[in-house]
């Protein structure tokens, strides 16, 4: 299938499940017969530090990383991490971000001040109007566990209609990748993220 390529940045904090989210996206794309390349970072960077995965679906892609200004979507599992990844955005990019901060040690030791969410969104607006921020942490808790925050955002991304794969492909991906005992919470998180984003879309997304 020679579909236009879809470039997705997944940014978050080590331990939030950035890699799991990318694997589910990758799996779903493969199910549709689309090409996939994912650039991941393992090891030291994961110890509570910033983690960015590059997911590239369809098209004729070579590089494991996305060029600045050419992401179709940025999935920010944490507000400052979404901001750090905003250089990959252009005016058409969809930014879907969790609004609940994970405060880094540089803030708790008093060396830095965590920026206000409004400031973060204002910076992101310089790139694109298509921003939805949702409290994915709260939604995840309601779905059964704060650990499924990543899947809330995958659900929210699905709601943008940007992904070339079907919702059932993503659900299949989740089923294949999460342990049995956490499946219910993950599936709930996916649905809840989708609905939250759909509600948010009307106010935050500019229809194109």
């Amino acid at each position, binding site marked *: 299938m020679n579909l236009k390529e879809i470039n997705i940045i997944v940014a978050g904090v080590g331990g939030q499940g950035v890699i799991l989210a990318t694997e589910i996206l990758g*799996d779903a794309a493969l199910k549709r017969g689309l090409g996939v390349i994912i650039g991941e970072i393992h090891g030291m960077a994961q110890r509570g530090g910033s983690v960015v995965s590059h997911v590239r679906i369809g098209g004729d892609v070579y590089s*494991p990383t996305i060029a600045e200004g050419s992401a179709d979507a940025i999935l920010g599992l944490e507000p400052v991490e979404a901001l750090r990844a905003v250089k990959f955005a252009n005016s058409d990019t969809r930014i879907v971000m969790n609004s609940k901060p994970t405060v880094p040690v540089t803030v708790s030791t008093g060396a830095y001040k965590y920026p206000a969410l409004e400031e973060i969104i204002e*910076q992101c607006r310089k790139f694109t109007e298509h921003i939805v921020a949702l409290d994915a942490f709260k939604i995840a808790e309601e779905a059964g566990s704060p650990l499924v925050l990543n899947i809330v955002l995958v659900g929210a991304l699905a709601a943008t209609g940007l992904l070339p794969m079907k919702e059932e492909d993503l659900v299949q991906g989740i089923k294949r990748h999460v342990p049995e005992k956490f499946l219910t919470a993950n599936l709930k998180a996916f649905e809840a993220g989708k609905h939250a984003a759909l509600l948010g879309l009307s106010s935050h997304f500019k229809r194109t």
Partner: protein
Amino acid sequence: MYALRDPHLLLEGKPGDKYLLLGNEAVARGALEAGVHIVTMYPGTPASEIGDAIAQIANVAGVYMEYSTNEKVALEVAAGASLVGGRALTAMKMVGLNVASDTLVTLAYAGVRGGLVIASADDPDCFSSQNEQDNRYHALLANIPCLEPSNPQEAREMVLSAFEISEELQLPVMLRLVTRVSHTRGVVAFGQIKERRAGSFVRDPKRLVMVPQNARGGHMTLLEKMRTASMIVEQSPHNQIFGAGSLGLITSGVSYNYCVEALRLIGVTAKILKLGTVNPLPVALISKFLRTVNQVAVVEELEPFLELQVDAIAHRAAADVRILGKLDGFFPRHGEFSTGIVAEGLSKIVGKPLPQSYEEALKKAVQADKLAIPRPPMLCPGCPHTASFHAIRVATGGKAIVATDIGCYALGYQPPLCVGDVMISMGASVGLAAGLSKATTDPVIGVVGDSTFFHASIPGLVNAAYNDHKFVYVVLDNMTTAMTGHQPHPGTGITAMGKMAKRIEIEEIARACGIEFVKVVDPFEFKNAVSAIQEAVRQKGPAVVVFRRPCAELKVREIK
């Protein structure tokens, strides 16, 4: 086609099946297809998943796998198996090859019998490393063939080629990986798994016993083999030419991908020579290529390894062509490349502007970057190292000079703990501490992790005992190799293949090295931990304190 959740698919996957694999998993599959007998490694990012993947299926596959105590041992175990005709793969991160290089350079003289492939993973940008050395130079130094894949699919194919070349030349062959190949997930089509062939030892001391009179001949044999290698690489399917135009690009490995997309980004066409065999280089192929273009940009991460050689080849071939690269400042000599970085260099070379979207993104990102407060990696909640470092601070009033080592605990140098004044390489803390103690009256402490202790600190500890260096050596024993993914080590009592083994006790080793003061303490018993350090500091000679408590992450995994 699926991402690999079950490592057994690496073994069960049929020819033609396609899976979404990490580059490292593709290397593992390639080795299985090549009929590998034995896989050895010391874990290290970005190479770890090669061994981790094999470890999980080794018993079923009938392959022997071990996490050796260090990379030198790993190479030697693999070489031994190869000398009786078995196919062997050893994998390590780039700095691991420094440790193994003593064996490697002379092994190249002696040669191998069964194919021996060394998968060496570089880490441009130091994602998880203490330097960003370019290991293509190790291949040049040892004078062995080196292949470099650009993606997971090629990684699988090149492992197969590497085994073939290794057996044909009877030489170890390097497979040079980088983080962006090892940790890229891409679609990999499987091939047939070959039968393993049984080997036998052929006694040949003239070839294998590297005393001077044999080593001289061994060197000549190596040079002869590499002349043959030079002919092999001219025909190699891994060297390919794409596109057309008066601008030529010479590139290899992951940089090729950035070249293709950078050309698209700036809307330029070029003729690309993509090299898969980076040592030795296909000189005739390159000479011919140079004559078909007006100017050539050499695009490669890190050192100007290809560029310097291409320059020399052009000179010898008297090719009328400009060669541009990092020597002229078009591309950086540090960090990893990206489509953007390559596009910036190429746009200067061809005099074509970068697209507006790219330039604008970079401009706008300046302010965003300022607002994005730093988030360095840190020790996990509940990490026993935090308690250990706090105990060191309290016991020494924060006055100790601390040589630390490679592992999670290196992060203890950051505020608020601030324990760690110097860190260089695996096992270096013991020697550094000994030296520091010779020129100061402040207390000196060396810090090392359990796996690193086994890896490279024992000779340093013997040295400290024998020469009576006065410092405290603190072993942070969290009973696993945490940083790289919780691989077992000799102190854990379990092997890579899941067999129970004799636990090698760190405190017993310390005593056997000649250290008289050895204490084992749980760092969560904080008062005892502090007084153990205080008592150790008061000793006249070297003292060892083992802070033992399992990694907090191991507990989390148990709960999950």
